[in-house]
């Protein structure tokens, strides 16, 4: 009864107080570790804990599972059918959620949160998932035959384990999309809108969280060019027993003003017969590698760490997922050719994340640390230090840093070259050949090509992490490859973490290419305004409503001199529709912050004040801007097509949760300070709206 009362309270009191409840619950789980390492808490990995027990498991003794493809269903399979406005059909609420009645859909009601462009871009594909506790996967679909998935038999149940020799994860510790691993992959293409329906089937009792995480969720399609109602706004969360319909129209940015007649052959998407169909918009805005993850206010780190992260491959005429079609547009990147598009044979998603587990082998997280959490085990696709079998040919790897606070610097163990072709989901203007990738920040994506034809059958080569952390604030140092291979680091995540086994010659010749020109940047014309965001510690809370966060991390906007804690009821910026602006993001401390700007891609113009500091791999479009200690980034960005309430935040998700996040708004109707967008206040019984509790004087 006590836990139910606690939970009912949590449902009513809002995220911050729920966080405190979770904190108190979770504190009992971590206190032992804190006491054991009190004198060296900031040099201990996992952060504040004890080394993860391995139960005799050795590295590279399990295959790396490919992502699990989510079914693409007809929209007619959705019941109830999706609608432009939130479905407010009432249902009984569990007493643990306060009882009474509430809507079946958690999306805020009314026209302001209606799907923009729903009639123009009606969903053609339904992807329906259930977010829930861990269970065995009995429907694993890697999208490739077993010989291209290191021999994994997908017909066998896939247990919720980080390794076959480790314990099954408790459904309270691991929460994932569909409750299963491997992580999920959505396949999409331009011009084919997706209705992503997410059911919240997490425990109604907030205390049933295994010591960390919260059962209210909001899923961000990172970095979709969608209306804000589909962006996973941190304050548009929904409750257990509700669903939320996210409408991903999958359009090229600029579709309202450029190539509106859809005549450009490069602005196109693959059809099912080997051809393409054209779409409106600027083909220079074509995107490729996205991911989706929870964005619950104050709880993103915990929920993502529990497993609420998947990836989304977007296909286009340029990035076809078919390496054999020669039509003058298709870039023919490594993929395969059996299907007309979206071949995954040689196009592999890799989600890197450091984890830790407790003495029982259950996933463990330290919610008391506000600097950033580090695990001591590197997982790839939620598998601990796996191996992956490859053929002697080129492969594309879509690498996502899905960690909470850790940066990775990746090299191959023999220092062989890798070709970086994309950064943050955007193909670069030109490929960049490297022998050590730059440190990849949290949420960044690097797409690379590795040519395994240089090896012989039965050779092995390893992916190596060179970046050492002492704590979650920032990288401590990059070690040399020789040091990493020799284990000369106190950080257990430094060293080899993924083994490639070259197992055979390809059955057919490798016809894939890495062209000299990929996707040139779109033109961003003259800017109308500059904005300035300084990321710092020592933040203060100037508001006290249920939308306000608390923590030492914050953002000073436009030289106000005050570093503010997050408050999703505060509007910090409100660019005009179609505006082009220069945003400067400055790190005022010795830590590091990979800063994510939602919705629109930016182009880095200056790093630390000069254009010559911008390396080749950052000369494309980006959505995460890694600042580095005391560093700054100035980027050009334009706002168009959709509107609503978006965010900007540090993607070290512990920093984000404590409370380095701000809200910015965009309204095509030319709204003003006199008519700002209201803030949603979700409860199980329905969403209400309140006026913004703060609007910064420089916002408009």
């Amino acid at each position, binding site marked *: 009864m006590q836990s139910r009362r606690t939970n009912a309270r949590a449902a009513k009191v809002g995220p*911050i107080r729920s966080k405190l409840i979770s904190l108190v619950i979770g504190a009992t789980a971590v206190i032992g570790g804190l006491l054991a390492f009190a004198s060296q808490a900031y040099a201990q990995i996992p952060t504040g804990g004890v080394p993860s027990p391995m139960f005799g498991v050795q590295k*590279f003794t399990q295959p790396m599972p490919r992502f699990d493809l989510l079914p693409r269903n007809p929209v007619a399979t959705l019941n109830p059918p999706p609608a432009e406005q939130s479905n407010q059909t009432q249902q009984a609420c569990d007493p643990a959620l306060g009882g009474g009645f509430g809507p079946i859909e958690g999306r805020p009601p009314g026209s302001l949160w209606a799907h923009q462009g729903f009639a123009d871009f009606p969903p053609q594909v339904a992807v329906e998932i259930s977010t829930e506790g861990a269970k065995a996967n009995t429907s694993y679909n890697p999208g490739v035959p077993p010989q291209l998935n290191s021999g994994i038999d997908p017909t066998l149940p896939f247990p919720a384990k980080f390794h076959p020799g480790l314990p099954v994860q408790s459904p309270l510790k691991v929460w994932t999309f569909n409750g299963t691993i491997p992580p999920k992959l959505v396949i999409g293409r331009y011009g084919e809108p997706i209705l992503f329906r997410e059911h919240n089937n997490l425990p109604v009792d907030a205390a049933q969280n295994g010591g960390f995480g919260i059962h209210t969720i909001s899923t961000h399609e990172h970095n979709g060019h969608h209306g804000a109602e589909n962006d996973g706004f941190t304050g548009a969360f929904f409750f257990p027993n509700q669903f939320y319909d996210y409408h991903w129209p999958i359009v090229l940015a600029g579709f309202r003003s450029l190539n509106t007649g859809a005549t450009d052959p490069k602005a196109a998407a693959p059809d099912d017969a080997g051809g393409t169909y054209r779409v409106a918009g600027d083909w220079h805005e074509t995107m490729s590698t996205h991911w989706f993850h929870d964005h619950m206010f104050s709880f993103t780190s915990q929920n993502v760490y529990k497993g609420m992260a998947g990836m989304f491959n977007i296909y286009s005429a340029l990035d076809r997922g078919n390496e054999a079609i020669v039509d003058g547009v298709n870039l023919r990147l490594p993929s395969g050719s059996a299907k007309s598009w979206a071949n995954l044979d040689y196009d592999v998603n890799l989600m890197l994340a450091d984890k830790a587990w407790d003495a029982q082998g259950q996933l463990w997280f330290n919610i008391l640390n506000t*600097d950033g959490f580090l695990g001591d085990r590197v997982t790839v696709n939620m598998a601990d230090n796996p191996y992956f079998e490859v053929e002697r040919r080129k492969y594309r790897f879509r690498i996502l840093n899905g960690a909470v606070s850790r940066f990775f610097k990746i090299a191959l*163990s023999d220092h*062989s070259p890798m070709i970086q072709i994309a950064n943050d989901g955007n193909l670069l203007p030109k490929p960049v050949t490297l022998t050590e990738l730059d440190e990849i920040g949290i949420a960044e994506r690097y797409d690379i090509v590795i040519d395994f034809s240089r090896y012989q059958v039965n050779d092995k080569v390893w992916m190596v992490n060179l970046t050492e952390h002492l704590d979650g604030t920032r990288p401590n140092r990059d070690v040399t490859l020789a040091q990493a291979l020799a284990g000369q680091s106190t950080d257990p995540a430094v060293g080899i973490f993924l083994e490639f086994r070259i197992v055979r010659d390809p059955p057919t010749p490798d016809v894939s290419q890495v062209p*000299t020109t990929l996707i040139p940047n779109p033109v961003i014309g003259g800017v109308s305004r500059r904005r300035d965001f300084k990321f710092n510690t020592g933040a203060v809370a100037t508001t006290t409503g249920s939308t306000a966060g608390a923590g030492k991390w914050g953002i000073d906007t436009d030289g106000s001199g005050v570093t503010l804690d997050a408050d999703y009821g505060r509007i910090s910026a409100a660019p005009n529709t179609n505006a082009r602006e220069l945003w400067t993001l400055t790190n*005022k401390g*010795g830590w590091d912050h990979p800063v994510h700007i939602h919705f629109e891609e930016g182009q880095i113009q200056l790093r630390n004040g000069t254009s010559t500091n911008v390396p080749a791999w950052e000369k494309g479009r980006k959505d995460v801007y890694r600042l580095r200690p005391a560093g700054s980034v100035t980027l050009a960005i334009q706002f168009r097509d959709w509107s609503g309430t978006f965010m900007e935040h540090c993607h070290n998700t512990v920093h984000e949760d404590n409370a380095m996040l701000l809200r910015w708004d965009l309204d095509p109707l030319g709204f003003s300070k006199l008519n700002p967008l209201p803030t949603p206040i979700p409860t199980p019984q329905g969403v209400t709206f309140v006026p913004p509790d703060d609007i910064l004087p420089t916002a408009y």
Partner: protein
Amino acid sequence: MNADIFRLFGLTVALLLAVPAARAQEAESTFKTRVSGKLVGAPEDIKCSGPVKLSVMVQNDPGKQANAIVTVDTQDLKCRGVRTRTAYVNSGHAILTRLLSSTDVTETSIAVYPDTSDGHLNARSALLSLKLSYDVATGALRDASVALSNTRPTRSPNHKL
């Protein structure tokens, strides 16, 4: 327990656990040096020479050893095949997070590849051995040397847990 008490408790916990929020101090310096070296191996040996620019941002972070963010700019490095006289280019930058000390000896590597349309598919690896000397008091880079050579063959990795 009302909301204000919850909030007060939360802030207290955060303050107790927080690293002292002292401001960091920064220093930026650059140093140009020249490098010459040779990559030995098939299909041909490659000779490289030219300027390398080192830019260092040092961050003094109270309570921690200062970071030095070292940018190695090799854009102007010229490389040429000994046999064919083919021009080789490289990817231009390497960025390293290092710890500030009076002398820092470390390594990184760059890809060197023919300046042709498909050259990036035929890249070779070049080891850059760096020796950096700092004025630790100011964080300024005082001296630097860079050597270019073949990367070393690596032994089987350590499979430690």
